[in-house]
């Protein structure tokens, strides 16, 4: 019988596990922190960058991408939720409302993304008759402009003409004639618009003068003159003009001073108020003094004749 022998398993000589110098060096190289970093971050970055830049190198593709982005943007902006169809202006008179509409010739409907609310508010607030403005987009597609108008309190007559000022002296509008606003007091002179508050206090104090009051004049950008009818004037000091005016008015009420033939009441030096009379009054006064003088001589002569 044939002997059945298992084929002897050829035990393979175990290969030397030693790495070659090259593989050893490569492994050490790969374990170097800088190289590892470069492989983990640098190469992916470079690859992505290369692919993206290769794709974008073609101008048509760039344009296509830009068009797509613009289309998407427009389609979002033009949704009805974002459209503004009219402008509502509250708190402004018809003239001012027309002005505002003239400043912003917006053709509605427009997307709210295209409206620059900040600039609009600054521009509206920059208009002369506007004190403050709130601009917002109200739900329902309404551009809401809330305006607080400046209220004119005085008329300022200067070389340029008549101007309406508010209580802070800010210019509001021009005026063609004084008769348009007879209710407002009048101030004159250079620099009068910078002292409107003081002027208003003077007008308040001058209430007892009634309609004799014509206006007040700023003299030398320093002090006020109160101008009355019959060309009368009250010259007020630079300091505390209101109390000086009150003194004059008190005097006038007690002694009817202002209704006499007085041209100027000079209160510039408080300790020495001075009156200037009209030339006719002076002349009359001299006549009277002359007459009085003759009378006295005669009387002296009579007494001496006795």
């Amino acid at each position, binding site marked *: 019988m044939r002997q059945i022998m298992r084929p*002897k398993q050829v*035990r393979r000589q175990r290969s*030397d*596990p*030693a*790495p070659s*110098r090259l*593989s*050893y*060096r490569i*492994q*050490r190289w790969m*374990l*170097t*922190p800088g190289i590892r970093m470069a492989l983990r971050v640098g190469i992916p970055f470079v690859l992505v960058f290369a692919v993206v830049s290769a794709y974008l190198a073609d101008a048509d593709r760039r344009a296509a991408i830009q068009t797509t982005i613009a289309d998407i943007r427009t389609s979002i902006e033009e949704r009805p939720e974002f459209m503004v169809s009219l402008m509502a202006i509250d708190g402004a008179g018809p003239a001012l409302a027309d002005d505002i509409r003239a400043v912003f010739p917006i053709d509605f409907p427009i997307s709210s993304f295209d409206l620059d609310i900040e600039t609009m508010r600054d521009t509206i607030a920059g208009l002369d008759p506007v004190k403050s403005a709130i601009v917002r987009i109200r739900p329902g597609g309404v551009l809401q402009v809330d305006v607080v108008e400046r209220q004119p309190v005085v008329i300022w007559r200067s070389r340029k003409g008549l101007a309406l000022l508010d209580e802070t002296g800010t210019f509001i509008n021009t005026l063609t004639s004084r008769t348009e606003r007879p209710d407002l007091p009048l101030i004159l002179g250079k620099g009068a618009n910078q002292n409107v508050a003081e002027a208003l206090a003077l007008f308040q104090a001058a209430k007892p003068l009634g309609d004799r009051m014509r206006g007040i004049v700023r003299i030398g950008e320093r002090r006020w003159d109160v101008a009355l009818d019959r060309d009368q004037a009250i010259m007020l000091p630079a300091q505390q003009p209101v109390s000086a005016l009150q003194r004059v008015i008190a005097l006038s009420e007690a002694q009817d001073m202002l209704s006499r033939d007085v041209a100027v009441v000079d209160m510039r030096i408080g300790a020495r108020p001075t009156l200037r009379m009209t030339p006719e009054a002076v002349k009359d006064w001299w006549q009277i003094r002359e007459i009085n003088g003759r009378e006295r001589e005669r009387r002296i002569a009579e007494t001496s004749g006795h």
Partner: protein
Amino acid sequence: MTDLYQSQRAMRQMRQQALQRGVIAILDVGSSKIACLVLRFDGTSKLSDDNSIGALAGQSGFRVVGAATTRSRGVQFGEITAMQETERAIRTALQAAQKMAELRVDHVIACFSGANPRSYGLDAEVELEGNVVTENEVARVLAACDVPEYGAGREVLHAQPVNFALDNRTGLNDPRGQLGQSLTVDMHMLTVDGDAIQNLVHCIKRCDLELAGIANSAYVAGISALVEDEQELGAACVDMGGGSTSVSIFLKKHMIYADCVRMGGDHVTQDISMGLGVPMANAERIKTFYGGVHATGMDDREMIEIGGDTGDYEHDRRRVSRAELIGIMRPRVEEILEEVRARLDAAGFSHLPSQQIVLTGGGSQTPGLDGLATRILGQQVRLGRPLRVHGLPQSATGPGFASAVGLALFAAHPQDEWWDFEIPVDRYAGRSIKRAVKWFRDNW
């Protein structure tokens, strides 16, 4: 001597660099295996809260992050005999350890056992210039040691001051700052064949690594296998390796003697191979599985298949009893231990206060070895395993890794050596003028 200073200092500097970088490799070049550990240093070790040393004996400053072993090639008796082969083996171990650590290692500390280590005891005495021992005085007394003629072609591997004496007080570890008249130092110097070092340096250079230190494996095995009190009271560490068995004696935590028996486990394997007529690989396997040194009646009945690769059925199916195997192994192990005994006697080990002997190394795993060693070396014999260190894999905790672990401890806490002290000024002689000129040139 200046040469020695320079090369050793260069290595010390390299070690400083490696510690700063925080990564260093440990390479144990043995005759049967090459072990590589990669250490990562995480700053200085901290003591535990109650200032005790802690479970890891204060060795928590580093962590083993990579470990690899490979079969050694081209190393016999602990010396490199085939450079290319050894270089490949070192590369294998390093590559595997680096891969495990995922770190690139540039500095390596190596140890080897062979190259005929020889111990010298040096001493010197100087009169102190002042009353206080300063660092300069220590350097002066170290420099005053007269170096014996250790022969051409040999190099100093370790030179450690082991004891200082001030006047009549001896046993000082650190005499600095103390008062006295004359300072005496005892130093232990270990020389090995220079060629062996050169070969190792060359192999490591070929692997693109920087050598940051060399140690004798008898010394580092003692560091890791002896416990603290044994090192203090005096003990011998017998590292039974593959190609050589190295002996080191420790006293007062310093190595005072080291020697090497050029026989080891490989010779036992060779005996088995010759006695049974089997290949070396088979003999190694039989030795590790069935080896022993103490036969009992049971061993007569336990039959071992010794195998073979000839193709002859009868030859390949031979069986021997375990007693026969032990009969082959025992005389060689006895011979090795006798040699160790002779070396210890020559070193005067019997005069030490403690006669503790610690067997470690791969060969110490032979069953029954402690009994045999007790008969030959004396009563106080134990088997030693290396100290536990952070992160050491389970596979590397056996006694075969005593020198690798010891080298890791050595890297973390190097002992002061001769060359760590400044060379005293008068030794510079001609160079001092040059240094002064150079200083002026650099600074003005």
